[in-house]
């Protein structure tokens, strides 16, 4: 079976990475911003797995790293959502533009 070249995977992951960044910069809903971060993390995951599979097939480091990333990301997101909910109680919004009482 012919394999997909590494470059394609890297292009995919890079695209995901920049999509995530773009999303993070443009979406005003905090939850959506979190989802964008997830996109970035997933691009990282793809990178790890692709490198592992293509360049260093005789070990599992990349895959393990991916697992850890997924786990930590879950924790991170749950914490973030808790904090956002807390914020919502005070601000009545999750629009990131509105949250700028502290500045300068």
């Amino acid at each position, binding site marked *: 079976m012919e394999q997909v070249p590494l470059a394609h995977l890297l292009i995919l992951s890079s695209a995901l990475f920049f999509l995530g960044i773009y999303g993070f910069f443009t979406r005003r809903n905090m939850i959506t911003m979190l989802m964008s*971060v997830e996109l970035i993390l997933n*691009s990282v995951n793809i990178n790890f797995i692709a490198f592992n599979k293509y360049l260093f097939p005789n070990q599992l*480091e990349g895959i393990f790293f991916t697992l850890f990333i997924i786990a930590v990301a879950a924790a991170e997101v749950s914490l973030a959502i808790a904090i956002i909910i*807390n914020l919502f109680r005070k601000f009545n919004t999750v629009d990131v533009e509105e949250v700028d009482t502290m500045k300068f």
Partner: protein
Amino acid sequence: MINESIIIMRFEWLISLMIVVLFILNLMGVDKKPERFMNIVNVMLIINFVAGFIPIKDGYLFQGFYHTTALIVLEKNILNLGLLLIAFSAKQWIIESKRPAEFFMLMFSSVLGMYVMLSSGHILVLYLGLELSSLPLAALAAFNTDSRKSSEAGVKYILSSAFSTGITLFGISLLYGAVGNLGFDAIIQHIHEDALTLTAFVFILAGFSFKMSIVPFHMWTADVFEGAPTPVTNYLAVVSKGSVIFIFITVLYTVFGKLENAWLLAISVLSVMSMTVGNIFALRQQNLKRFLAFSSIAQVGFVLVGIAGASNMGTDSVVYFLVIYLLSNIALFSIVEAISDETGKVTISDYKGLYKSNPFYAIIFTVALFSLAGVPPTAGFFGKLFLLTSGMGSGMYVLLGFATINLVLSLYTYLRVVKAMFIDKEEERMPIIKKSLLTNFVLAVCLIGIIVLGFAGVFYQYIDSISSQL
């Protein structure tokens, strides 16, 4: 194996044990009586701090994923000291917050993360430690659920932290692609100065810089420092930042040692930006917590000058400086906390005439500020000048030039506060602040440390002796 791990990982074990104890106490409902609970916690903290001084041999665990050296032990002890002092000085606030167990569990978890991070021998462990240390901080920043500012700080911290993690991880993945193994030893062996590695390095550097709040990755700092409860700010500014700087030196000096030319350049640029931007923004801050945020940004700029020395002297001076920095900042934040708890005043103009109303605080505040500014006879003078000396060692003349300009600029920013306290006429009389024993103890420790460390060449010599073993 287990025995060995208990000895070598003593710090981690002990703090984990403490977290468990807190859980149990929480379940037992001891934290409903915060006073008593606080006493227990304080005793635990003292035990933790004292236990840190029991000697540990250098060693490895888990195929080098975890290692410890005398320097790392020292660094952990420094963090312990910070933790202890912060907890002591925050007692009153924690009692009033009604959720002491939660607070300490989060804080201890964060400290645990730092220990892991400091001892890491592999990027994975480093990543885990970093996350473990920073995630609880977001919760801590938002700890004061009644406050708009606190929750805003929490959100800003967790979101930018998540973003930063994403960037860092992307860098790590690229590094993995370039090197193939993320163990520190392996990286040292296989790393080359090529485009992929350099890109990966920059992404990782950005992650560290975010935690150390280096310009231009610093933007969260001021807002979070302002919004977070003062003890948390204190912790963020001192312990969190300190731990990242510690590991940052190791990573730069050893893991990315081969990229020295590249990172020297990067660090110089970041250093100049940090010092300058930090000081210029600090110039017109009114809120003391924001002021200290920008001042800490500038301070890290100076630390980078020391790191740019790229030698033993760099490690020595950074560690030495961080101890002084820690003591000075804890003194400052403790006073800010004591005053704002009592009166809610946190702006510089509120501090006008502080020397008249609360001379003790004003004097310690001044000494600590002078220590940050690098004015003798405080230890900050030595700390800062050793950083600069170290920076000169690698011939970074331009960097040094900027650093000296910033020395002057930073003196101006700090003198503004001193002026308010000693020279300006008070607008509204500050009440005499009740002095709690623990706060006074903390301030006394800081004051003595700030004065004595400068004359205690022995301490510096000790740092030098253990750093040169590496």
